[in-house]
């Protein structure tokens, strides 16, 4: 595991130590250790099957771990899951919705079983917070995917949790709704709510998260401050009409280039520790350069780390 400098809030709300979960012969997560400070927003990144959801489910108290320890608000999730569940609001990848209920009735039920203070009042508050007023009286089965996702977020928020765990919260939302949820999460964090979210939308992480934890094959590949990560490398991707091995060799010979990967027919990804766009363009033109673009920095870090072992 590599780490980049990134301040960890000393008042940590979540502490995970050597957490391991084994399914049969498969290690879903393997010795994960990280901490999340109070009021911090941490982005969980990783390819499908990396172990993000398993980690989140363990933290939410839905799943036991094979070994290791996870503390939320100083309480051991495995020893006292009930107390932890009072602190945690959890949105699974697939929102757990009783579709035969109306939005308001569903949220009232969620508020009651989650021991919310003043359930009716909290329900009206989250309906307003998440923008569900127009559909509050409607059956969930008649809602669009975006609204269903928002109902899922509302149920996670309804008991004013100190820790919010969101698995793919932006899934199914249109760009305007994403911005709304982003500002909602930011607002919650300013109010000292700790947030862990997983997403595949990398710009989302940069826009909203303070820190990022990249997981692959059940292990942490990198964790640190989002802005520190952005400075760890630069990359370009290019498309050429006539790919030849000579091009790969020439690109690899450019000073500072760390890796050249063929990502498709005539498509290449070049990572480096400096800006190499000019040299790459010059080298690639004789091969019929069709497209050249600067790779998103976090995206590049993500691709590099998760492809290394592949």
């Amino acid at each position, binding site marked *: 595991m590599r780490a980049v400098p990134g301040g960890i809030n000393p008042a940590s709300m979540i502490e995970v130590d050597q957490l391991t979960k084994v399914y049969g012969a498969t290690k879903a997560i393997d010795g994960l250790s990280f901490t999340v400070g109070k009021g911090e927003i941490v982005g969980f990144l990783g390819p499908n099957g990396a172990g993000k959801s398993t980690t989140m489910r363990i933290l939410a108290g839905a799943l036991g771990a094979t070994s290791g320890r996870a503390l939320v608000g100083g309480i051991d999730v495995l020893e006292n899951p009930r107390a932890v569940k009072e602190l945690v609001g959890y949105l699974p990848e*697939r929102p757990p919705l*009783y579709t035969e209920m109306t939005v308001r009735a569903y949220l009232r*039920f969620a508020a009651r*079983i989650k021991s919310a203070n003043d359930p009716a009042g909290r329900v009206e508050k989250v309906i307003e917070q998440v923008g569900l007023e127009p559909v509050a009286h409607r059956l969930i089965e008649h809602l669009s995917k975006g609204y269903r996702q928002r109902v899922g977020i509302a149920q996670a928020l309804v008991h004013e949790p100190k820790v919010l765990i969101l698995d793919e919260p932006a899934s199914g939302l249109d760009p305007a709704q994403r911005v709304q949820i982003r500002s909602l999460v930011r607002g919650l964090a300013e109010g000292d709510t700790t947030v862990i979210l997983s997403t595949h939308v990398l710009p989302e992480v940069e826009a909203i998260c303070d820190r990022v934890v990249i997981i692959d094959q059940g292990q942490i590949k990198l964790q640190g401050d989002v802005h520190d990560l952005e400075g760890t490398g630069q990359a370009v991707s290019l498309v050429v009409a006539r790919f030849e091995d000579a091009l790969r060799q020439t690109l690899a010979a450019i000073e500072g280039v760390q890796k050249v990967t063929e990502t498709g027919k005539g498509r290449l990804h070049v990572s480096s520790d400096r800006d190499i766009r000019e040299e790459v363009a010059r080298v690639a033109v004789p091969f019929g350069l069709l497209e050249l673009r600067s790779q998103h920095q976090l995206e590049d870090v993500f691709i590099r780390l998760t492809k290394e072992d592949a």
Partner: protein
Amino acid sequence: MKVFWIARREIEAMFSTTIGWLVLTAYLLVTGVFWFAGVVAYVERSTDLVYNPYGAPEMQLPMLVSEFFGSCSIVVLMIAPAISMRLFADELKQHTMELLFTSPVSVLEIVLGKYLGAMGFLAMLMLCTAHYPVSLALFGDPHLPSFALGYATLLLMGSVLIAIGMVFSAYTSNQIVASVLTLGASLALFLVSVLADTPDDWQAKIALSSHLSELLTGIVRVSDLAYFVLLTLVALFVTHQRLESFRWR
């Protein structure tokens, strides 16, 4: 209190699905036919008694009541799988168990809430037939404790069948599979007494029908009550263990 909210949600869910209304309709229709046929037969026998006091078959009021509740027990046997099948299977299919599992609710509270919800729905079905004894009481002088015992027996039987149904519902995400397995197990438990040669054989002792027939004839024995309570508790315990295992899968 959380047990109450879970139970209430289950009852509301039954009434917001087609299956709930179908079960209610079928129960009222079939038991209505049984009641009508029972009353007609009773009236005919009463008439015979007036005109032929020595030749008519022996008769008494419990005949009507125990026959009616005996027939109702077959209906309960048929509808209990339809009530219990969705309790967990639907949650597993729709991935909604995650809400309960990540809320500060114990597995015991979940199991009890679901069980009481299903029993509450069954009790409502029974309540819908309360006009039978009420109408008799308006025009005659029926033996009401017989009716009370009849309803209590149906609820005890329903309790066992619903608890067994919960076990199967917790083992599959397919409601139809859960319902067929529950019906199969219920019929086997009901009819296992046919394999017995004498009433002392173990097949007769474990059969639902043996314990039911005693209660329906008005004989209340602690051993019969213990049978229903024990079977319910065992089935609820198995369901509890099954749900608890989800955390470790």
